């Protein structure tokens, strides 16, 4: 192991995180290895263009179009790519559907794997030690922290994203939502409902 010793090269940089990042960016820019305009473009992409509204569009189509839903469950990668949602951290997609019998919930205990093209950059809590440590062992207590209590007859299936396969939870469509428009339905599909820590149509 190159760095199983005390002198990790990162320790040569300033320790304050803000200063550390700015120093590294300056070094890399002056070496001609990084273009600051490209960094701006990456940030703008994930701050404003690629986020959980993409996933919500997929969920609403699954709720409203049985043929789409069937195709999505069989080959999510191809189906969501057909909607323009493909790329980094979404190369191998699987959709998992919540039912009265099974509630799905996604974690990455080893790092922070997450379906970027559909949900964007993961929230802080998804990347936290507490979520990574607890979600696999006590998912129901974690869900309670999000205000979710499942019926005793519903099993929890936690997906630990240990490979390059990314999981999108298809939450259950809330009762009483017949006749809502696509936009109204999309508003029910929160980011957390597609990770499995919330139910669609409910906040907190």
């Amino acid at each position, binding site marked *: 192991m190159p760095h199983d010793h005390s002198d990790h*090269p990162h320790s040569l940089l300033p320790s304050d995180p803000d200063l550390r990042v700015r120093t590294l960016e300056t*070094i890399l820019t002056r070496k001609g290895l990084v273009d600051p305009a*490209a960094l701006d473009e990456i940030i703008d992409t994930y701050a404003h263009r690629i986020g959980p509204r993409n996933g919500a569009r997929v969920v609403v189509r699954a709720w409203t179009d049985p043929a789409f839903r069937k195709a999505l469950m069989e080959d999510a990668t191809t189906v969501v790519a057909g909607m323009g949602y493909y790329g980094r951290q979404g190369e*191998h997609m699987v959709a998992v559907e919540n039912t009265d019998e099974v509630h799905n919930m996604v974690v990455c205990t080893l790092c922070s794997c997450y379906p970027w093209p559909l949900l964007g950059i993961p929230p802080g809590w998804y990347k936290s030690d507490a979520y990574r440590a607890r979600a696999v062992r006590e998912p129901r207590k974690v869900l309670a922290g999000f205000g979710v209590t499942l019926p005793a007859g519903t099993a929890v*299936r936690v997906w630990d994203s240990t490979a390059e396969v990314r999981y999108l939870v298809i939450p259950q469509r809330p009762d009483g939502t017949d006749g809502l428009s696509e936009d109204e339905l999309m508003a029910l599909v929160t980011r957390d409902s597609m990770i499995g820590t919330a139910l669609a149509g409910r906040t907190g």
Partner: protein
Amino acid sequence: MSRAHDMGGRFGDGAVTPEPETPVFHTDWHARALALTLACGALGKWNIDVSRHARESLSPTDYARFSYYEKWMAGLADLLADTGLVSREELSGQAPVQSGTNDRMLTADRVASVLATGGPADRPSDIAQQFAPGDAVITRRLNGNRLVNGGHTRLPGYAAGARGRILRFHGTHILPDSSAHHLGDAAEPLYAVAFPAAELWTHPEHPGDEVVLDLWQSYLEPAA
């Protein structure tokens, strides 16, 4: 034989704190750290498994005290030094020297296509699929990397030596245990494997609960 990142099932962590969908980045330097990591990855000197292993190789003390993007920055700095893209002197504050490998620099006009192209992990493999959905399997009791002592692996400690069943076959994928150490793709069959909570935890919350992990064929043995 564990590392600090392998924390699934650990006791002692506190509450998980929900947060709204926006802002995506809580401070400027978080956004900058993410973008720097992606831009440096595009230089082509390492793959995603190498970069994960760099973060996992932080000392347990640093891994625990660093916030998320601090881990990314530390892992990135170590990789830049390892690959020679940046010298230790430059990290220490000496004037940077123009790089000879800047022809691969990610430019703003290429960002959209690079992000949209991604990096698929499926590869052809000569290794035959050994298991089918429904088959009973047991994970290796020792979850260490078998190619490199202390190396990268994706079998978490909490799921080592556990009995589960094959849920689905994902095709043949790059083996991180090999790829993280520049030893080649070594693609092999990858499966989603379901484990009853009672197989993993002394006090499972509910008899019907399961945990599913994506596991490579060489992590698994047939169960009688």
